[in-house]
């Protein structure tokens, strides 16, 4: 009796082990499919970039003779559509950095005034930010085109910077609100008793304690601006002022576009955000998913 019982439980254990093993194998197989799904368009970028122009128009799913020629062409700007590539990279970088800096400055100043100085109009400002946050960005593209002209900012990087700051700041204010709630208010009170003025509290207490949130929002704003296409396309026009995504779009629309150059340029353009993203990943995801669900 006890022998059969033991045999039975042994078999059951074996079954459980086997089903766990099957589950793990199934999960791995699914993981492989997921990796293929994820990497397919990215592999396609590399595949096109490392082929000769003529080889792109072929049935290759593997580069027959990989070459870095197209990257060299982009690097030295030897193709006419790429003549200002590095300048355009510079434009993208300038806009990105300016947007990050301004978003941080305006966002922290506003949030500091609302929650630390406790200005009476605080809820009004928060609602204004919320209103901005729920407007789809592209819906204002048409009026912005006319308005930037009337502000004298046509074909000027500052027009794009202004738009990006406008749409990045509300998000910054909300993240600062959540993060700033954990900074004890007694610090401000103690500083006040010692005679500190609001700017001193802002610079010496508030900003240093907000550092992790500043990193998260700085990265967010930088990447938002770096990735922007529509506003850069509408508000910038000359070869010297446009950003890289606009140049890529022009490339795409020109007849007889050499796809290998286009993809090589696209890869170079995608690398800086990729590096920044993975370097600051922890800050980003903690900033973006701060809170999660409140049980």
């Amino acid at each position, binding site marked *: 009796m006890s022998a059969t019982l033991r045999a039975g439980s042994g078999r059951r254990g074996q079954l459980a082990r086997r089903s766990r093993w099957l589950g793990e194998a199934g999960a791995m197989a699914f993981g492989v499919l997921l990796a293929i799904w994820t990497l397919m368009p990215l592999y396609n970028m590399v595949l096109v970039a490392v082929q000769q122009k003529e080889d792109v128009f072929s049935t290759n799913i593997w580069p027959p003779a990989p070459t870095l020629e197209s990257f060299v062409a982009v690097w030295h700007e030897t193709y006419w559509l790429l003549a200002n590539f590095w300048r355009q990279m510079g434009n993208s970088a300038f806009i990105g950095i300016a947007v990050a800096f301004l978003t941080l400055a305006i966002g922290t100043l506003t949030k500091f005034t609302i929650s630390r100085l406790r200005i009476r109009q605080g809820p009004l400002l928060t609602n204004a930010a919320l209103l901005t946050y729920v407007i*789809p960005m592209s819906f204002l593209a048409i009026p912005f085109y006319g308005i930037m002209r009337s502000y004298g900012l046509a074909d000027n990087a500052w027009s794009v910077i202004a738009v990006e700051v406008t749409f990045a700041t509300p998000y910054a204010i909300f993240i600062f*609100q959540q993060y700033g709630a954990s900074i004890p208010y007694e610090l401000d009170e103690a500083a006040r008793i010692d005679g500190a003025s609001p700017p001193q509290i802002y610079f010496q207490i508030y900003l240093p304690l907000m550092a992790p949130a500043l990193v998260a929002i700085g990265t967010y704003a930088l990447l938002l601006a770096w990735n922007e296409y529509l506003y850069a396309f509408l508000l910038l026009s000359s070869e010297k002022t446009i950003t890289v995504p606009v140049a890529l779009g022009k490339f795409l629309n020109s007849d007889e576009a050499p796809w290998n150059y286009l993809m090589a340029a696209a890869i170079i353009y995608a690398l800086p955000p990729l590096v920044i993203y993975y370097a600051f990943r922890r800050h980003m995801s903690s900033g973006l998913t701060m809170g999660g669900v409140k049980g």
Partner: protein
Amino acid sequence: MSISTTMGVAAPSSPARRQVWRGGLLGRDYLWALAFIAPYVAVFLLFVVYPVGYGMWLGSDIASYRALFADPVYPSAVLNTLIFLAVGVNLKLFLALLLSGYFMRKGWWVKTLLLVFILPWAVPGIPSFISIHWMLNGQWGLINNTIWDLFQMDGPPWLDQSTLAMGSVIYGYIWKWLPFWTVIFLAGRMAIPRELYEAADVDGATGIGRFLHITFPLMANLYLVCTLLSLIWTLGDFNSVHFISGGGPALSTHVLATLGIRDAFELGDPRMGMAAVMSALPLLIPLVILLMRKLSKGEVQL
């Protein structure tokens, strides 16, 4: 992507403390406060109030609506917008919810896979969408080349037929945004206390039971808020459509966001473009109101 619990409600502080500070915010401090909020107020007035007002004015011309409704592209753009929202957003979020469960598994390879999986989110959209556009080329694209190599047959002309082209746009959109929402739901799942699952295990709950009775009820609010936010953002999505199908073939895959830009800048009629955008408001405004209501209850923090 953050919304706080206290939005639209007065600052959460004890009344006693507020009074102390009300007294403190006088004279010089009040001037400092005004100086500190001046940049944001200026941004709001110059770049939110003015464009919104100007846009409404542009979109207030009845004649441009008449022209818009007479445009044969318009009904198909409305239909495409609805399909894009209904299929794209819901499929994406449902897959993200399932995948977030998958990424809760333990093991080094799951963590590595997650790093790979978030690549589409980290790579800028334009290069990816251009790549997808070329990958789906009927003649020389990677997908049809692969189909040919595997099955010796011609793949479908992905971007040359309107249903397939709309499907391609939705594919590219899901590919790009799935990682972001998966990470959001992953954070939501991690916030669920372990003990709940342990208690369920003791009661003999199976995988599906755990999902139906613990995970889903606790995530339902987050899921709803994410759906609303995602609907609002997707309504304004220009890049996926513009770069993957370009609105083609024969203008059959335009959505309202791309149609507005096309009317305003390709046809040179900003009033008609703004009318196309404004015609999305009956959809946008209820979504915004629902979202506000959900958020002001403070049940969900994103």
